[in-house]
């Protein structure tokens, strides 16, 4: 994997970004620095969790756009979406109307990714028998899988070697359509993603060769399209598309949606900062014995996905009500498609560790760098002001020993050096311009930032 460019769904619009540091301070892997006045993302550290996008006051982060235009190339145009997609609409819009709007958009078949959930959950349970020790960690959330790869490499062996729900739905859809006489090359599978992490995972899967999905659709974009196409009344019966959807399936992507399948000793944690705190403990063996651990990067699970519209708690509320109208997963038994055929395709490779926080592969050099970091920290102000373009003093110290920053990047030290006549004022200014861009120093009454921003 080394040397290979990592694909990321999150990009920075350098026209919009003005280097306000909100994103940099919230990033759970300290992957962002300000260079030339704008946020830049370290591709090896970024896990595509999307917290930067959420924190940005000027919408400078964006997620790569749809591949919706290809749908016309296929005879069978399948849209796969997670249940949370329905949950974000107000309850005045029935499921039937939303489904009809999807057909109007040009899709011929509709599958929610959670059908048939039981098959994948069974397979995940089976994989826990292959695990030597510790809890089985869900592979559901790609941001969490990437976080574990980079920050908790020793825990990668606990990650279930199973694919994601959208793979289940894709294989299930393909098998069903093949039964109806479709040729595999005529089928286009379009997955509606609730977040940047799943978008990145489809474009560059974590533990498989390539994804089965043909194209990814940004959920926010689809929401807008559907709102424009919603029919006033239901005219077609679309319930056939939902015949394999179950109660547990609808709740799968919400907190405890996976853990509830494990009757005993399971835990569910949502929110990537909460997950970080828990994994630190798990690594130290400071947690009780667990069989299964569900970890989701967004608060309230996928209902809090960054590409969803509306309030995450309202989405959860609607899904909980909706789930009650559906049968239990054990009562659903799809005819025709063989469970084993689909289950076989859901086994993935093991997740490989990919540590990125090691200071140096050579231990002697790593130790030297560590000492330098501690020494540099004695001189930095310790207020984590981000004036240097790094999220905190410790990150700056690390950047300095790695040759990515200088002592004079710290605005406190810079002032001190000017006073001690070690740095000339014009050189100091040029240095600040390198980090913050020239425009930062011009008076501008329409400047973004600083005016009750975030309230």
């Amino acid at each position, binding site marked *: 994997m080394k040397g290979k460019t990592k694909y990321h769904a999150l990009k920075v619009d350098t026209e919009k970004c003005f280097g306000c540091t909100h994103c940099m301070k919230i990033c759970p892997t300290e992957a962002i620095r300000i260079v030339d006045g704008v946020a830049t993302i370290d591709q090896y550290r970024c896990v595509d969790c999307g917290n930067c996008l959420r924190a940005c006051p000027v919408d400078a982060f964006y997620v790569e756009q749809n591949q919706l235009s290809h749908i016309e190339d296929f005879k069978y145009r399948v849209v796969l979406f997670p249940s949370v997609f329905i949950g974000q609409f107000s309850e005045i819009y029935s499921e039937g109307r939303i489904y009809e709007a999807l057909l109007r958009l040009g899709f011929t078949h509709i599958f929610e990714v959670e059908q048939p959930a039981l098959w994948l959950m069974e397979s995940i349970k089976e994989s826990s028998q292959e695990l030597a020790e510790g809890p089985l960690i869900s592979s559901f959330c790609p941001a969490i899988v990437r976080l574990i790869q980079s920050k908790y490499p020793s825990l990668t062996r606990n990650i279930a070697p199973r694919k994601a729900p959208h793979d289940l739905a894709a294989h299930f859809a393909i098998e069903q359509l093949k039964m109806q006489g479709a040729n595999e090359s005529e089928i286009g599978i379009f997955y509606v993603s609730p977040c940047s992490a799943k978008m990145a995972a489809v474009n560059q899967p974590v533990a498989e060769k390539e994804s089965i999905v043909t194209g990814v659709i940004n959920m926010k974009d689809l929401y807008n399209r559907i709102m424009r196409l919603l029919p006033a009344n239901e005219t077609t019966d679309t319930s056939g598309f939902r015949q394999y959807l179950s109660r547990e399936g609808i709740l799968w992507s919400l907190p405890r949606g996976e853990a509830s399948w494990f009757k005993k000793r399971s835990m569910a944690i949502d929110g990537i900062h909460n997950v970080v705190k828990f994994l630190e403990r798990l690594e*130290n063996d400071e947690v009780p014995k667990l069989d299964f651990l569900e970890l989701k990067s967004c608060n309230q699970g996928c209902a809090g996905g960054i590409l969803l519209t509306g309030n995450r708690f309202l989405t959860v509320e609607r899904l909980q009500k909706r789930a009650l109208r559906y049968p239990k997963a054990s009562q659903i038994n799809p005819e025709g498609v063989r469970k084993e055929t689909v289950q076989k395709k859901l086994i993935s490779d093991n997740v490989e560790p990919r540590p990125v*926080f090691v200071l140096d592969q050579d231990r002697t050099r790593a*130790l030297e760098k560590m000492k330098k970091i501690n020494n540099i920290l004695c001189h930095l102000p310790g207020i984590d002001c981000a004036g240097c373009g790094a999220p905190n003093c410790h990150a700056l110290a690390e950047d300095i020993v790695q040759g990515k920053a200088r002592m004079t990047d710290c605005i406190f030290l810079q002032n001190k050096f000017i006073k001690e006549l070690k740095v000339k004022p014009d050189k100091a200014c040029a240095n600040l311009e390198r980090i913050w861009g020239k425009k930062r120093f011009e008076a501008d009454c329409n400047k973004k930032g600083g005016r009750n921003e975030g309230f």
Partner: protein
Amino acid sequence: MALELVFQIEGGDFSNAGKASSQIKKVLKQLNIDTRIIKRVVVAVYEAEVNVAAHAHRGQVKALFGETEVEVVVTDQGPGIENIEQAMQPGYSTASKEVREMGFGAGMGLSNIAKNTDNLHIESEVGKGTILTFRCNYS
């Protein structure tokens, strides 16, 4: 040349026991040490921190990161250990009822440290305090 980190611990402050072991873990991870070794060090330091919180008035953890091993010295001002051999026995505990009720003091501390480190040395003076020294080789 080794890197030295020092942490202070207050007696009775269980909520902060674990801070030193967490910091030490961070350093070892950045030094690219085998995760199994890191786990052993972390468990040993955590046990030592809890010991200080449970028994002593105050203490400190000093970690010395060398090129081949990490050395940890835990010094406390406290009651000291009367019979070190007995204290090393798994299950032997002098922890108070209060400490046990908090879920600590099961008598596994010192034996756990011995199990996870390469070289444990205990010096103690009754009524004054205890000095615990242990090492963990990186390989």
